[in-house]
């Protein structure tokens, strides 16, 4: 039997809900301030667009569970197989609508440019997500060195093609036409959030995550952020990226994170934040432009994002 006791606390002493809610906001704000102060103290850390409950994903997961089809289609394959890749020496060939074209040594391209730490949300087109502390150089600073001309409307990147070191490229079954190609519009590439990543968790970028350098465009699905880049090409025409070439109705050129436009084979309305537990897939709503709408929505003003997915 349940006997209800009268409440011990007089109603006059109970904090009204509105005040209580304010307290929560206050605490949230102070927490953000403290975190913010801590981050700015660590030199040039940027955590633009991070939500209060965005916790950095453990390093072990970021480096051992990802897609890099050059090393196999399973998400544990890159970690298992990328050891075979040699990244030194590394040559980058620059071509197209730019004044300075030709082959450059990787060290020379990044010489004098200091990587900054950027904590970004990472959203894969397969509907899982992470929060990753990248070390990177603003893409604009890298690209400007080659002095792109007025004809450069787009920039295309290519991943290394070296089947003897990249087991996935030797796959008999894959329909991918290697090397992997990705591209950006120049204004997207020049956006301050776009970076060329050279490190992870304050360390050198591991092979399986795209050593020696890879793109990171946080408001787009992960496949746009091409890894182990050996070619940069400036052009007037929109490049055809690898996944678009493979299945144009599933993957577009823009690939902006958009909860309103589903992938034909799964919903993009929510995402599974890694790591999850066995009884809880840790689902959370996906944000437009992966939470970076304030910074980048302007780039797509007037465009039909359903058509330009």
């Amino acid at each position: 039997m349940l006997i209800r006791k009268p409440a011990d606390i007089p109603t006059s002493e109970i904090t009204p809900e509105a005040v209580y809610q304010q307290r929560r906001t206050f605490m949230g704000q102070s927490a953000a301030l403290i975190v913010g102060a801590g981050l700015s103290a660590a030199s040039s850390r940027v955590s633009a667009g991070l939500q209060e409950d965005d916790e950095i994903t453990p390093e072990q997961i970021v480096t051992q569970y990802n897609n890099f089809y050059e090393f196999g289609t399973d998400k544990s394959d890159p970690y298992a197989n990328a050891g075979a890749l040699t990244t030194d020496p590394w040559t980058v060939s620059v071509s197209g609508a730019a004044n300075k074209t030709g082959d450059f040594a990787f060290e020379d391209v990044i010489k004098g440019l200091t990587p900054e730490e950027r904590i970004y949300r990472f959203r894969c087109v397969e509907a899982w997500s992470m929060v990753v502390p990248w070390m990177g150089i603003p893409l604009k600073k890298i690209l400007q060195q080659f002095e792109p001309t007025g004809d450069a409307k787009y920039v295309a990147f290519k991943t290394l093609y070296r089947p003897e070191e990249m087991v996935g490229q030797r796959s008999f079954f894959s329909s991918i036409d290697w090397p992997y190609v990705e591209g950006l519009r120049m204004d997207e590439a020049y956006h301050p959030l776009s970076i060329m990543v050279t490190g992870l968790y304050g360390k050198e970028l591991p092979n399986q995550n795209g050593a020696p350098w890879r793109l990171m465009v946080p408001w787009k699905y992960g496949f746009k952020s091409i890894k182990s880049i050996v070619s940069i090409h400036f052009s007037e025409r929109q490049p055809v990226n690898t996944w678009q070439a493979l299945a144009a109705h599933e993957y577009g050129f823009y690939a902006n994170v958009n909860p309103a436009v589903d992938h034909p084979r799964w919903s993009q309305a929510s995402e599974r934040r890694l790591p999850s537990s066995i009884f809880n897939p840790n689902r959370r709503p996906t944000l437009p432009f992966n939470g970076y709408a304030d910074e980048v929505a302007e780039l797509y003003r007037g465009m039909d994002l359903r058509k330009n997915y």
Partner: protein
Amino acid sequence: MRALNVCRLKALVWATLSAPLLWLLILISQELRQPNSALGPEPSEALLHYLGEWALIMLLLAFAVSPLRRRLHWPPLGQARRLVGLFAFTYATLHVLTYLGLYAQFQLAEVIDDFVHRPYITAGMAAFGALLLMAITSTQGWRRRLKRRWQQLHRGIYVAAALAVIHLLWLRKDNTLDSAIYLSVLALLIVERTVFFWQQRQRREVGS
């Protein structure tokens, strides 16, 4: 091989086909002790794929029982057919329950959305529907009741196996060795069966 009697054969099937499930229980107990250890960063996803893959393997096995019995001239094998089919059904059920519970969190609206909009889910659910019908009617009682229609209904194994392979092919982003193997096994079984039926008809025509 012929010394192996039906009882022993069934025990062997039980032991072999329940092994993946026992292994999974070990993985789960390890996972419960230390999160993300045995099943990786996405345990519900890992569980889903593990069960799905084994359901598909057992479905193809169930499909293969009759041809193997014929080709090996070993009639007792037919006695194990229902058991293999029920194992396939068990793994498929666990796979579907994992999807409904751990993955979709029992959100009916989401499941319906998936069923309507994602062809690979539609194919998978249709395969499960066929399996469910066969599992329910797998008893001797139903066999007697349905008479000739029973055999027709249980040819649903062709449909279920084909739909399950399609389910896998449609959900993959790129072709891989394992999906190529499943597809080849399915194609081989279908060709074998077609040739067999055709030969039977020829024989019947010659006989009449």
